């Protein structure tokens, strides 16, 4: 079988034999009690999840909800870590808590390997990606990333107020990941739609979500076919040619991994850059310290990642069980809040404060255990370069209108509107 044959037909047909998965009634609207009815998709959560999580940590500490067909929210570091390490009882077959559960038969591969994979398949799928994402591999992209950050700031010429999230942070990971996958750099705005659907459109009607997901996979299929016809030095060609167990990857594996890299690499890093700039815009003392002592930035960055960790993951409970005093049922969701873990006072001193020279910082922003974010070294490079360039070019800035700052809902948290006042350029 040639590579051409694998991608000639609509490879999603391969999944047609699987059962359809299960859907539940969609429940939206204000939360009555965060301990028994939580939802990370409501405005109150987006405005300030930390207050809610801190309160739950003292009250419960594992909250539940009947929304999304049933789920749990542990808030202590210890519980989050235990679940992250326990791949026997908690499956990654879906990692976005929604109103749809994919069929059990999808495990251990899942729709977007390796993040959706369980052992033992997980390890092999992950090993395919690791070499491309080591610290030294991503260092090769630093120069181009820096030049791109400068070009974004060049466009601020003559403006007093710019949107640090929309006009700066957002574009950086889009460009980096498009380059890595070998997608046309101008397709960035299309990625936005795909991501919004996957991560923020969770409570939309399933038909609408599925139709949009189809568009993503159609786009990926176009890109794959183009790479089959015109191979080049990028991750898409690498995945098309990669082998596992002596065979080329299943077409659904190739496309699923590309979807993962596209979706997971963008909103997350955008959020980390945006949240860091938000903190610096409203905290002149920290900004001044970093300008006076740029060598402190790598340490400060880790503290921003701890305090404003963008990513929450999800798991599905494998079988009915009693777990730390609660009765979990098979296929209940568990929202694995690394942001909540990172603010647990039992794990961190002065957990609710941002201490930019924190010496002891075992934060879990990139997860814990076998699913540690594959792109963490890339994300750290982008975050560091984005902050270095911004502070070098715009040392003085402040929130233009604190009330206009808007945060995303869902499992990736970051500012989506962040107007800042900059000195005229």
């Amino acid at each position, binding site marked *: 079988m040639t590579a051409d044959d694998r991608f000639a037909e609509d490879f999603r047909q391969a999944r047609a034999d699987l059962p359809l998965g299960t859907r539940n009634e969609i429940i939206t609207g204000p939360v009555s009690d965060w301990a028994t009815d939580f939802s990370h998709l409501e405005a109150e959560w987006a405005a300030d999840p930390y207050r809610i999580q801190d309160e739950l940590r003292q009250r419960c500490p594992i909250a539940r909800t009947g929304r999304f067909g049933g789920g749990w929210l542990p808030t202590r570091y210890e519980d989050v870590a235990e679940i992250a390490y326990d791949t026997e009882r908690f499956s990654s077959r879906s990692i976005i808590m929604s109103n749809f559960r994919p069929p059990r038969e999808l495990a251990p591969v899942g729709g977007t390997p390796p993040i959706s994979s369980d052992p033992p398949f997980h390890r092999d799928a992950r090993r395919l990606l690791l*070499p491309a994402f080591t610290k030294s591999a991503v260092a090769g992209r630093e120069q181009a990333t820096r030049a791109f950050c400068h070009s974004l700031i060049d466009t601020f010429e003559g403006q007093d107020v710019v949107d640090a999230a929309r006009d700066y942070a957002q574009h950086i990971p889009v460009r980096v990941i498009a380059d890595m996958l070998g997608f046309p750099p101008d397709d960035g705005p299309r990625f936005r739609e795909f991501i919004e659907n996957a991560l923020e459109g969770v409570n939309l009607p399933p038909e609408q979500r599925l139709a949009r997901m189809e568009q993503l996979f159609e786009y990926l299929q176009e890109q794959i076919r183009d790479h089959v016809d015109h191979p080049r030095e990028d991750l898409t060609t690498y995945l098309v040619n990669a082998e596992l167990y002596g065979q080329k990857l299943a077409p659904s594996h190739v496309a699923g991994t590309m979807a993962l890299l596209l979706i997971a690499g963008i909103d997350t890093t955008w959020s980390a850059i945006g949240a860091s700039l938000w903190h610096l815009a409203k905290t002149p003392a920290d900004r001044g310290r970093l300008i006076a002592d740029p060598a402190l930035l790598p340490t400060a960055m*880790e503290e921003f990642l701890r305090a404003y960790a963008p990513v929450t993951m999800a798991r599905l409970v494998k079988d009915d069980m009693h777990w730390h005093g609660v009765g979990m049922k098979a296929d209940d969701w568990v929202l694995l809040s690394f942001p909540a873990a990172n603010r647990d006072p039992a794990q961190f001193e002065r957990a609710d404060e941002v201490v930019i020279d924190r010496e*002891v910082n*075992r934060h879990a922003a*990139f997860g814990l255990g076998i699913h540690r974010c594959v792109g963490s*070294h890339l994300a750290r490079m982008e975050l560091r370069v984005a902050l270095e360039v911004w502070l070098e070019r715009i040392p003085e800035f402040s929130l233009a209108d604190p009330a206009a700052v808007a945060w995303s809902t869902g499992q990736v948290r970051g500012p989506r509107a962040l107007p800042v006042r900059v000195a005229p350029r």
Partner: protein
Amino acid sequence: MRVQIDPERCQGHGRCYDLAPELFAEDEEGYGQVLVDGVVPPDQGHDARRAVSNCPERAIALLQEA
């Protein structure tokens, strides 16, 4: 003093080779490796302790030797 990495716990976060590049390096998949024999020279003590106290997986041990 010597440093040691537990390969069963290490997940390749890379905090050790970020913070103590004289003592640790990445392997081809990004997992941490102890350089040479892991003996910590006197001027590297602080970096070694930071690597220990910033490893999210608690995979690094600092062994006191007589």
